């Protein structure tokens, strides 16, 4: 027997507030990232820059899977494609200006995602998770094989970039200055993704992830929303790829293949999908562990296996990832749209 709840003031329940953990984690992460170049050597700053670029790739995966239910194994495709375009621009056209490289990388990632999304997501019927996963995997693998055999883009040797990235004509070497450019790109990507998933559109994505059919019966064109998020994720992956090519001074076929695409998935699952900050921390955690293990004589040969085991344990026993240990399910779900305006009778309790 179910009792009928008594009516109460509509806003009463929504006035409940609990301590939010996510903003604290986000703030601490940002503070740590700001401190890195001041507290470590240039060598470690360069390593951290690479990790931030991979963290952007993890954000792009989280937008797709964690928030929209699009299982993508092809985020490296957009990453690598933007990297190749950045390398070609530098080598063939002498264009290394960051204010050109960044928007072009974003557009390349976005257009490539639109092209792939057109085939995989914009059909008459809603595609299945497996169809999209295999479709993106195939696209990523095909692109990797294509560039590996294409002499014009360096074939298996990839492309090297001999010129430095420039800002208003000033050359930027890898190190603290490049680090801060990438930090800005990471923060910008994070804020854009956060704004999207916490808007009313984010509520549509959250609903879509749970029950696409139900949303279609509300009148939502589910495929269009999926394609939109896929394009945004592609743009972020493209931005990280363009900067990555300049940071490493090189881009090769493996940068757009299934290995890197799978890493993006692992960053997300390890850190905790559906949180944005989780995949960022997942990328740092995996890269730091890999960096440390690969430097030890004892683990040099077996570190990928150890890393795989650690990830397997986390994914199998804690599907919510590392963040699941400290983040409540209610906070992960969160709320959408602008916060309520304070009511006159609001007690203002935290």
């Amino acid at each position: 027997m179910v009792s009928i709840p008594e009516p109460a003031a509509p806003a009463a329940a929504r006035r409940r507030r609990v301590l939010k953990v996510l903003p604290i984690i986000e703030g601490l992460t940002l503070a740590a990232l700001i401190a890195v170049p001041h507290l470590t050597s240039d060598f470690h700053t360069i390593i951290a820059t690479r990790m931030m670029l991979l963290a952007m790739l993890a954000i792009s995966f989280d937008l797709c899977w964690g928030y929209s239910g699009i299982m993508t194994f092809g985020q490296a495709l957009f990453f690598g494609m933007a990297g190749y375009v950045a390398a070609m621009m530098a080598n063939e056209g002498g264009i290394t200006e960051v204010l050109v490289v960044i928007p072009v990388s974003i557009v390349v990632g976005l257009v490539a995602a639109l092209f792939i999304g057109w085939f995989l997501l914009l059909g008459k019927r809603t595609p299945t998770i497996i169809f999209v996963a295999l479709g993106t995997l195939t696209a990523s693998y095909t692109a990797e094989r294509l560039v590996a055999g294409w002499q014009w883009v360096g074939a298996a040797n990839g492309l090297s970039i001999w010129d430095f990235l420039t800002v208003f004509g000033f050359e930027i070497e890898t190190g603290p200055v490049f680090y801060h450019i990438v930090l800005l790109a990471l923060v910008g990507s994070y804020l854009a993704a956060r704004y999207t998933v916490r808007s009313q559109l984010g509520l549509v994505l959250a609903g879509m992830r749970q029950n696409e059919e139900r949303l279609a019966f509300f009148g939502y064109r589910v495929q269009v929303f999926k394609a939109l998020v896929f394009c945004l994720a592609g743009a972020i992956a493209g931005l990280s790829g363009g900067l990555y090519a300049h940071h490493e001074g090189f881009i090769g076929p493996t940068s757009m293949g299934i290995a890197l695409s799978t890493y993006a998935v692992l960053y997300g699952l390890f850190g905790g999908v559906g949180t944005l900050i989780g995949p960022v921390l997942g990328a740092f955690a995996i890269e730091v562990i890999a960096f440390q293990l690969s430097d030890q004589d004892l683990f040099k040969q077996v570190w990928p296996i150890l890393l795989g085991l650690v990830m397997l344990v986390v994914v199998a026993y804690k599907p919510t990832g590392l963040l699941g240990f400290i983040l409540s399910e209610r906070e992960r779900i969160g709320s959408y749209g602008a916060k309520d305006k304070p009511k006159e009778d609001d007690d203002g309790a935290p």
Partner: protein
Amino acid sequence: MALLEVRQVTKRYGSLQALGGVDVDVAPGSFHGLIGPNGSGKSTLLKAIAGAHFATSGTIAFDGRDITRATPATRARAGLSLKFQITAVLGELSVYDNVLLALQAHQGIWALLGSRTRHALDADVCRLLERFRLDARADDIAGELSHGEQQWLEIAMALAQKPKLLLLDEPTGGMSPEERRETGRLLEPIKAYCALVIVEHDLDFIKDICDRLTVLDQGQVLDTGSVAEIERSTRVQEVYTTRV
């Protein structure tokens, strides 16, 4: 002119004929019940009207427009709303967000991205929650609601878009007698602006709220008419006394 016109609709699943040429008319503001024994094709017909699957042949016109091959999203935008047989509330979202999601369905993408209608829709969300006695649970996760409350939440979501026609598939399934009576009371006021097609096994409930009934048996219309006419129908009595 009828709001919904179903003409000679058939539905086949391989060699199985689930519907065999069904005709149904639903007038604006009318509460129309679909009854019949298990396997008679009630839910199949409701799904064909909602667009969950397409009819094999025949036509379905809604508000003067042919929607036989229209997608569920197109039908919803035309003013047709469905409450599923198995509750399909979004269990990971709050009760409030479930209703907001239904209310904002016709907003443009840029308005949603800018969260421009969040405050404007707040009053509507609260009104619906209050009407369905869910306001005290607005911030709770929908999956934590009792079965009866989830059914009400589903009806609230289906009504959120102010549809012209609401399709309800077994809305009182799993409810206590007290909750069934309350559901009837909650549905009564919508008659002013919305027609209803309801599939229900509880004949007392359906007789209480419906103006007209269509009785299906083995994918065919056995009889159609007012509640009193159906009660007098010898063909219906025969089916219900011999096979139900």
